[in-house]
Structures are given as C-alpha cells and as structure tokens.
C-alpha cells in the first residue's frame, strides 16, 4: 500500500519536473502557455493525491485552486493579452534551447544532491517531494531568466509558484495559513500583473521588458 501511494506521488511529482522541462523547451508564447496549463493540471493531480493519502481535506481546496485558476483562467487570460498585443509570433528565448536544457539538468541534479543530504529518517515522501519541488522552482527561475518577454516571465514565475505549492502540500500537516498565502500570493501576482500589463499597454507597444528598459531612470 505504502509503496503504491509512494510510487504514484513520486510519479506525479516527477511528471511536474518533466513538464517544467517541456516549458524550457518551448520558444513560442502560445505553446508555453499551453504547457503551463498542463503543468497546473499535473500539480492539481498531485495535490489531490497528497490530500487523499494524508486525508487532509483542506488540500482539495488547493488542488481546486490550482486546477481552476492556473489551468484554466490564467492561460485563457494570457491568450487574450497576447492577442490584444499581437505578439504571439515573437520568438523570445534569450538563450539557445540546448544550453538551457543542459542548465536545467544541472539544476535538477543539484537539487537532488542537496535534498539527499537530508537525514534519511525524515519522511522519504517529503524528501522526494522537496527534491522535485526545489528542481521545479529552479527550473521556473531558469525560464524567467532565459525569456525576454514579460508574459513568459510571468509564466515562469507561476511555474515556480507551482513548485512551492508542491512543496507545501508535501509537508505533512502544514497549517492552512500556507495554502491561503500561496493562493493569495498567486491572486495578488495575477492582479498586479494584469494591472501592469494594462498600464504598460497604454504606454508601450509591447510588454517586452527590453522596451521597458529604454526608460531607465538614469540615462548614460
């Protein structure tokens, strides 16, 4: 029993990492957003699974949040924005795919090494979860770093948040306050980003951060 539950949890978490890699691989915005939706779905599944095995029912809420907001609402919204800004054709990776993938692999191994140093008698499930979560977070950061476009940076950021959620749910009996805060932060993030995109569109033709940088405070 325990073995099976463990395997499934392991599978889902690993799947998340895999999807993160897929995100690294995309160089079109639409594709990126779709993959992110997938990412969110897998997250929702794993959270739900955690909820089931820990029979902590409040986690179902988190799963639902993940499913509804991240898998549906946000991707749709981003699609809209991209259409409105007409930037869906941009190829916007700053670093080549190959190096990015290599870096990603390096990051995953790094997080593995770190987490395996944790004493074994800690709950192995938690350990694996943490390892995966850490790699997802790092990969999300990598996405943000290697993308020029603000939208894709936001996407990368949200995949990072997914990693957080995974970690949080992996932590047994972590009080509700954390989930709330996670949801809350995503909410804020989305609202503020929305506000920004809106404002920025007023002023710039694209949300390209590079365009923003032309308006640095001190010019040389």
């Amino acid at each position: 029993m325990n073995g099976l539950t463990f395997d499934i949890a392991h599978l889902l978490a690993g799947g998340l990492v895999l999807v993160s890699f897929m995100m690294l691989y995309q160089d079109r915005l639409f594709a990126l957003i779709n993959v992110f939706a997938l990412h969110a779905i897998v997250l929702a599944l794993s959270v739900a699974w955690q909820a089931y095995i820990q029979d902590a029912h409040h986690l179902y809420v988190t799963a639902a949040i993940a499913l509804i907001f991240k898998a549906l609402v946000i991707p749709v919204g981003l699609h809209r924005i991209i259409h409105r800004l007409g930037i869906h054709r941009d190829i916007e990776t700053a670093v080549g795919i190959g190096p990015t993938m290599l870096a990603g692999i390096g990051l995953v191994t790094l997080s593995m090494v770190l987490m395996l140093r944790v004493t074994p008698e800690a709950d192995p499930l938690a350990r694996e979860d943490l390892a995966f979560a850490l790699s997802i977070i790092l990969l999300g950061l990598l996405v943000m770093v290697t993308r020029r476009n603000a939208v894709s940076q936001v996407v990368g950021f949200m995949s990072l948040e997914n990693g957080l959620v995974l970690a949080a749910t992996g932590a047994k009996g972590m009080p509700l306050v954390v989930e709330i805060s996670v949801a809350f932060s995503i909410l804020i993030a989305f609202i503020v980003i929305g506000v920004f995109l809106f404002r920025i569109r007023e002023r710039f033709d694209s949300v390209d951060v590079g365009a923003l940088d032309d308006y640095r405070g001190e010019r040389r």
Partner: protein
Amino acid sequence: MSVVALPLWGVAALLGTAIAAVAIGRRGSATQLVYGATLAISAVVLVIVTGELVGDPAGVSAVTLPLGLPWIGAQFRLDALSAFFLLVVNLGGAAASLYGLGYGHHEPAPGRVLPFFPAFLAGMNLVVLANDAFSFLLSWEFMSLASWALVMAHHREQDNTRAGYIYLVMASFGTLALLLAFGLLAGLGGTYTFDAMRAAEPSQFVAAAVLGLMLLGAGSKAGLVPLHVWLPLAHPAAPSHVSALMSGVMTKVAVYGFIRVIFDLLGEPAWWSGVVVLSLGGLTAVLGILYALLEKDLKRLLAYSTIENIGVIFASLGLALAFKANAMPSAAALALTAALFHVLNHSFFKSLLFFGAGAVLTATGERDMEKLGGLIHRMPLTSFVFLVGCVSISALPPFNGFVSEWLAFQAILQSPDLPQWGLKVMVPAVGGLLALSAALAAACFVKAFGITFLGRPRSAAVEHAHEVDRYSLAAMFALAALCLLAGILPGLVIDGLSPVTLSLIGNRMPVQLAQPWLSIVPIGESRSSYNGLLVFVFIAISASLAAFVIHRFASHALRRGPAWGCGFPDITPAAQYTAVSFAQPIRRVFGTFAFRARERVEMPPPGATAPARLDVEVHDVVWETFYQPITGAIGFATEKLNHLQFLTIRRYLTLVFLFLVTLLLVLALWP
C-alpha cells in the same frame, strides 16, 4: 571640584557661544560679541592651565561624565602633557580671537564663520582633555568638521570647495587609521579607556602596527609627507585667523595625539621606531620647505613651511623615541624638550605670520606675492612684526626659533652613545637634513618678506594699502613679543616643560634657572651652552655703540636720489626680481630631483624678431606617485561597475539566480 572641570567648563562655554552665534549670526554686533567671548574664555582657561602647569606640575586630575560611550562614559584627564598643549591651544585661540575682533569685520558672510570658530576651539580643547578612545576620536573628528566648515566659509571659490573636499576626506582617513589603532590597543575586551590601555602590555606586533597607524592618523592631520597634500590647500582657504589656528595649533593637537599614544599609552618603544619617525621627520622637513620655496601664494607658502616645522618636530620626537628605547633618559628628555619647545615656538610665529598675511590680504586683497611689494612703506607696523616672525621661523638668534633648533642639534650630538649602528649613522645624517631645511627656511623667508614688503609695488592694489586695525596689530605684537621672550629667556620654557618630560620619560633636563646669567645648558657647560639674553644684549650694545660712534664722528650728510642699479634706469617695477625668479637658483639646485623640474629655453635665431621663451615645468611628485593612481583606480572601477545600474530586469534576475545557485552549490559541496 577637580581641576580638570575648569577647562571643561571653558569648553562648555565655547560650545554655548557657538550655539548663540547661530542665533545672532545675522546681527552686526555678532562679530564683536563672539570673538570677545572666545577671547575671554581662552584667556581664562589659559591662566588656569598655566597655573596648573607651574603650581602643581605633577598633579593629575580626572573626571568622568555620563556622556559618550555608555559603559565607560566620557572620561577627561588633565596632566602635565595635556596642560602644556592646552596652553598652546588657548594661547593660539586667544590670539586668534583678538585678531578676529578686527579682522572679522572684513568677513563677507560672518554667519559662516562665527558659529564654527568657537566650536573649532572647543574641539581642540576636548581632544587634549579626552581620556578615552571614544571621546578622543569624537572630539578629534569634531575638530576636523568644524575646521572644514571654516574652510568652506568662502564656498563660492571653486578652489576652496575642492580644498575642503580633499581636507575632509584625508581627515576621515586619518580618523579611521586612529580608530584602528585604538581598536588594537583596546583589544578583544573593548577596553576603550586610556587608563586601561596604559596598563595593558601590547605585543611587539601590536606596538608596530599601532605606530604605523598613528603615523597615518596623526601624521595625516599634522601634515607628514606624503600625507600632507590637503594641508597647503585647506589652510590658506580658511579666513586668516582660522588659518593661523589650523597651522599653528591644530597641527600641534595632532602632535599631541601622537605623543599621547606613542609615548604614554604604548609603553616601551622599539629602537627602530625611532628610525622610522626620524627619517620621516627629516624627509618632511626638507620637502616641505622646498615646496614653500617654489610657492608664490603667501598663505600657501606659510602652509608649506608648517609642513617643514612639523618635520622638525617629528624628527626630535624620533630622537626621543630612540633614546627612550635605549634607556638614555637624559638625552630623551633633551630631545622631547626640543620637540615641545618647537611646538610652542611654531604656534607663536606661525600664527603671527598668518596674521600678517591676513593683514596684507585685507589691505590689498592679494595673496599672490607677484602682485605685492613695497608694503613696508604703507604698513610699517605690520611689516615690522612680520619681519620678527620671519627671523624667528628662520631659526636665527636671538629669537625663539633658534633655541628649539639648537636644542634639537644638541640632542643629535648625543647619538654616538646609541648602541645601534643604524641609529649612530642615521642621526647625524638627519641632522644634516635639518640643517639644510633650516638654511632653506631662511632663504624662503627672505623671499617671503623681501618680495611682499620690500622693493617697489607690483600692482595698483598695493598703492592704496594702509595699516590694519589696532586689534589685529595688538594680536601680532603680542605674539612677536612672545617670540622674543621665548628666545632670550628659554630657561623659563625649558623648566616649564620639565614636568611633561618627567611624566613621559621619567627624567628632565637640568634646572636652567639655576644657571648663571640665565644661560641654558643641556648637559654640561663645558659641552655646550647658549645664552640668548647675552647675545641679544651684546648685539644691542654693539649695534648702538657702532651707531653712536658713527653719528658722533662720521658725517651725517644724506641725500635721496634715484636708485643706482649699475646705471640701469629700470623704471618698471616688473623688472624687479619676482618670487619665482628669486627661487630659480635653488630650483635649479634641488628641483631636478625633488620636483622633476625641467627648463626649456627657446632662443630664436639671430635676427629673428620672435621673443625668447623660457618654459619651466614642475611636478608635484608626491601627488603624482601616491594620489593620482588611487583616484585613477577609483574612476576606473566606478566606470566599470556603473554598467550594473543599466541592466535589463532579466539580467538582474540572472544575477539573483546565479547567486542562489552558487550558494546552493556551496551547500552541496559542504563537507
């Protein structure tokens, strides 16, 4: 109430005056009130400390106020050393205040001077009184700050702001050096009181480090080469009575700091420390006076000569260290007395000279000697006292400058008894350097007086010059009188200094007032002796005798006529020797190695009508060697780093990301 409280009350009064000055600075009567107050306060404190120094020489009184660093409080202490330096400070302060009573009226913006002048005096008093590291550094830096504000008084001139900038940066460099020195002395326990430091026995390494740091810290304030660069910029920039204080007194406060730490707190010195200080002193003396010789700005010339005198003082201090390290107390006492005597003398004549320069400045509005000349006719009194100052600073008998110089030479002549060969050989060489600097000083002040006051006026400004007000004259004459007195009655001063040497070295020079005819005898009469009084009397007698005989028997006929000048009728005053041309022979002798001076003469071929040209280029070697590289390096680094202000957000994220990854890697590879 312990004695130390009295000068502290004086300090409080000065600070109160400063605050009051902020309030009343706008009013016309402010100048009178403020300088009157400072004069009164300094005079009172002067009387107190003199009484203390004479009446109760060995007395030590300390007090702790609930201020400053919380767990030790602000500790103050009055002993022989601090009493002597308080005397120097307040004497200078009183003279400057008296001078300011008149000079202050020429101040365009008194609001920028009046509050800071008393604060400056208060700061210097506090430094000398402080008995723990925190209060010492606080007052030290407060002193710098107040003087900085005074340097910035005429802030519209570009040069002054630059001078102020370099000054304050160097000052806080010095303060940080001192801070490190005290950090070492305080040790791990953080015992910041001087008493604790005195008790502690620092290791050889610590002692060496402290000496180095003190040379950096106190040296940069006193103006030791190569840390002197700020001095010739800042001292002239301030109003003249402040310049007098900075040159005549503040540098002495720095010397006090050095003596306090090295002689008092640090315990037994190592013999090589004498070598270091000695050589630095000699170098400073010669370089300082050479700079002064090339200068044509009167106040800057005086500032450079301050550097020279500081060099002389430090050379004597180095001797004292060497003797102290080799357990030759009597010789050490002699050297230390020479140093302190010179401190006193320099505070006299340097203040006097700066007052004179200020008088010239107010009368003509000129500091550039090339535009002066012939002032002796229009400002006879000023020129007389200035002459007295020049003679004293050129170390000529029977004035005071010579006595301290002579004592220093006598101390140098004790060197054969030193065990270390290095010192044996080096001390006379440094003596040669001191002699050289003395001779150059004489040349420098022949130039200063000759170009400024003698000859014919070089600009219209001089034509309308007239004598300065009576306050200024009073201040200058008082100092001139002191110069002569200290010169003809040196025994008084030497005996007055004995408690200081007793407290620092445990020995003193023989009692001088016991000598017949008030002559001074460092060791024994058969070895060496000097009697300023008799020399003065003899010169006076023989001069008047000669004059009498001449006027009795020779002709009185006297006819005024045009100058002879070998029959050359040179009408224009421009044909006179200028400051630069006066220094030219010396520049040719010493300039080539001291300043990498080059002369290029472009002589047109015979028949060509083009004028011949003489180009002289002089390098400030110290600046180019030590400071330009630093500024260059900082400029380069800022240029490079400044790009970090203009990265894209993605790049900033990359920075964060890389930093995170590195830290994680460190953790992963952590054993």
